[in-house]
């Protein structure tokens, strides 16, 4: 299957640099997937789970497509908001924070989820602070999902 170049970078590390068949993430307007030869696109991301379908493992192994990441057909990374740009069959994802499954503290994420849920439900109609709770909740859920919980 055709692939697209994909980079996922944060201020502290490059989490993915290589080829991918498909990248699934969530923009502010809803879930979106990028395949090879996607048209030029700039979008803002919500906290979400990014799923990267890497090419066949053999290809991934020989080409070293997965940099610093677990090799395999699907790479999961939790992303705390950011941006995505697609241009010339290359997807660049900029995340302010991103965590790989093995970096995620599941207990902490669960605690954050519970705490953000109460804040989101109690602070209904509080405008901006409402949105903060929502983002925290999405981030906690994305981490749990990435960790396979």
């Amino acid at each position, binding site marked *: 299957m055709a692939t697209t170049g994909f*980079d996922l*970078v944060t*201020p502290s590390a490059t989490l993915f640099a290589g080829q991918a068949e498909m990248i699934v993430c969530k923009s*502010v307007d809803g879930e979106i997937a990028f395949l090879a030869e996607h048209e030029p696109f*700039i*979008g803002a991301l919500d906290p979400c789970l990014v799923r990267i379908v890497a090419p066949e493992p053999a290809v991934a192994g020989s080409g070293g497509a997965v940099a610093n990441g677990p090799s395999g057909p699907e790479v999961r990374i939790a992303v705390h908001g950011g*941006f995505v740009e697609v*241009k010339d069959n290359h997807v*660049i994802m900029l995340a302010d924070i991103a965590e790989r499954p093995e970096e995620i503290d599941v207990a902490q994420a669960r605690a954050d989820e519970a705490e953000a849920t109460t804040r989101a439900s109690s602070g209904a109609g509080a405008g901006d602070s409402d949105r903060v709770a929502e983002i925290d909740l999405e981030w906690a859920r994305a981490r749990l999902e990435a960790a396979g919980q």
Partner: protein
Amino acid sequence: MAGGQERVLRRRIRSVESTKKITRAMELIAASRIVRAQQAIVAARPYVGKLREVIGHLSESPEAANHPLFHDVHSTQKVAIVFVTADRGLAGGYNANIIRTVERMMREHRAAGRDVQLVALGRKGVNYFRYRGQPILFSMIGVSERPTYADARRVVGEVIPPFEAGQLDQIELVYTRFISIGSQTVQTRQLVPLVPEEGHEGTAPAATADGGSPTAYEFEPEPEEILDRLIPSWLEAEVLTAMLEAAASEQAARQRAMKAATDNADELIKTLRRVMNRARQDAITTEIMEIVGGAEALRQQSRGDDHGPQHDAFVPIQESA
């Protein structure tokens, strides 16, 4: 009396030696931290570079020019200077260079009738300006050696709202740029209003390579909304880069200062040893002279009295002297 001087010198040498151990240890610690600080700069570089690229592409869209952070205010009245110093001293001229630059900028702005406020990152800068009663808008301490993205975000969160509310017209950034281990310079740049040319800097060649026609992007959500999110991220990345560069520069400056201190201690110990040895030699010579003098006196006395055994005992000393 002469032996006392030797004791004093010996004590001094011991004290210099223990100081030397400390400066040597600090030198080694700084050297190892430079490596870590450099790694942090390298790790952040792709993010900052790609962010600039995206901003560059986005700023080609007509909406970008209307964004408030791009707006150049006609008459700048209120300026904020964000500057990065170390939390600790013992780094040679590192802190002094930044402070001197900030003071010069303050003088220039005030001479032009502008109101200046400071955003001090690092304990040394905070203490210096607070002691002198300068207006500090926001300060942050305890992060100079290991700045994180969260720290940069906090700084941006403090300075951008007043800018958007019109309480500030211009924000400048002063930090020490890390060029190499041997070379760091104080860097001054304007953070906001954004200078559009600066945004294109890294991407201009790529844009012209496309044949001059800007790529027709699909936006999700609207370009304005993306800009609203992207620009704070960019500012955060710029502040983070400045803090990371400053952290590496700080360690490099400290390593250099501590190396100089260690070398100095070596030199001092050598000089003190020489003085001490001379003092000891003097003391020995004086002692011999005293003994000889005493023997001579006794000999002359005994010659008058003619006491055999005592006389014999002192003869060899007289010969050796």
